[in-house]
């Protein structure tokens, strides 16, 4: 297990993430993507809201997606507990303050709204979509990145 202890090479990690695309397609028969899980969670929490996007959405057809993101939580937990000597500073200390939590919640709103409006996130558009040479996913990826640059360089008061 010693070889696993430190940070993994970005080359190997990227390769492993890339394998998720054919892996899920061929073995689970599903398209690699994460942000749709937000819709399923919403439909479970509030199935009777007026919005058709949720009311007409049968999350039971997508339980695989919820099981998949549950796996992501567990996988990260396992990595933290079993093969990490020094835990990563995942979030800055300020994120634990009330202001930090509110800032994360606000950023989260933008993440949830934006990914659903765009029809995918870094996994569904940037990785799955570009792997399929989907033009919309290339535009989406450019927009994701442009938004990140706008915030990082222009809206610095929002950044930790």
């Amino acid at each position, binding site marked *: 297990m010693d070889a696993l202890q430190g940070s*993994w090479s*970005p*080359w190997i*990690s*990227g390769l492993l*993430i890339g394998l*998720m*695309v*054919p892996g899920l397609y*061929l*073995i*689970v*028969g599903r*398209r690699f993507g*994460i942000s749709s899980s937000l819709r399923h969670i*919403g439909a479970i929490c509030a199935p009777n*809201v*007026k919005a058709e996007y949720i009311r*007409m959405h*049968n999350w039971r*057809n997508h339980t695989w997606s919820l*099981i998949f*993101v549950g*796996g*992501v*939580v*567990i*996988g*990260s*937990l396992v*990595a933290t507990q079993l093969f*990490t000597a020094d*835990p990563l500073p*995942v*979030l800055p200390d300020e994120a*634990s303050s009330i202001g930090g*939590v509110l800032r*994360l*919640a606000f*950023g*989260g*709103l933008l*993440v*949830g*709204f934006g990914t*659903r*409006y*765009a029809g995918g996130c*870094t996994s569904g558009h*940037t990785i799955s979509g570009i*792997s399929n040479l*989907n033009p919309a996913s290339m535009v*989406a990826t*450019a*927009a*994701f990145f442009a*938004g*990140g*640059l706008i915030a990082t360089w222009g*809206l610095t008061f929002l950044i930790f």
Partner: protein
Amino acid sequence: MEILEKLPTPGPKLRPWQYGAAFTFGVFFGAVLYKSEVIRWERIHAMFRFEELHMYIIIGMAIAVGIPSMWLIKRFEARTVTGDEVPIKDPPFQRGVIYGGLIFGIGWAITAACPGPIYAQIGSGAFPAVATLVGAVGGMFIYAALRPRLPH
């Protein structure tokens, strides 16, 4: 219920063991997100500040593996292990790809998390990320409510 049954599903009904496979892929993905430090805010900021190549290599390698894999799948008309057609199902172009994409990008820089890493941050014990997830589900509800009036 009748209408719901007619709505499109993400693909053919799964065999029970495929749920186990989905979970295994999730665990694998979560572990890689942690060990590659994709879920670490400093890595995301360093990407947007052009300070290091780490994130660019990860995303670039993922695509460099994904493109030939998908080319092979299409070229040989590969089937899933259950013998079904591979459900490519790419999201189509609409204006939300640009507007939503920009908004998501701003949120990505603020929270240092795209949706996958939100789950992995929570799993790693970075509990403020629960606020990110609650916000993200809230943002999805706002989209659901505004959807009929947004340009698509």
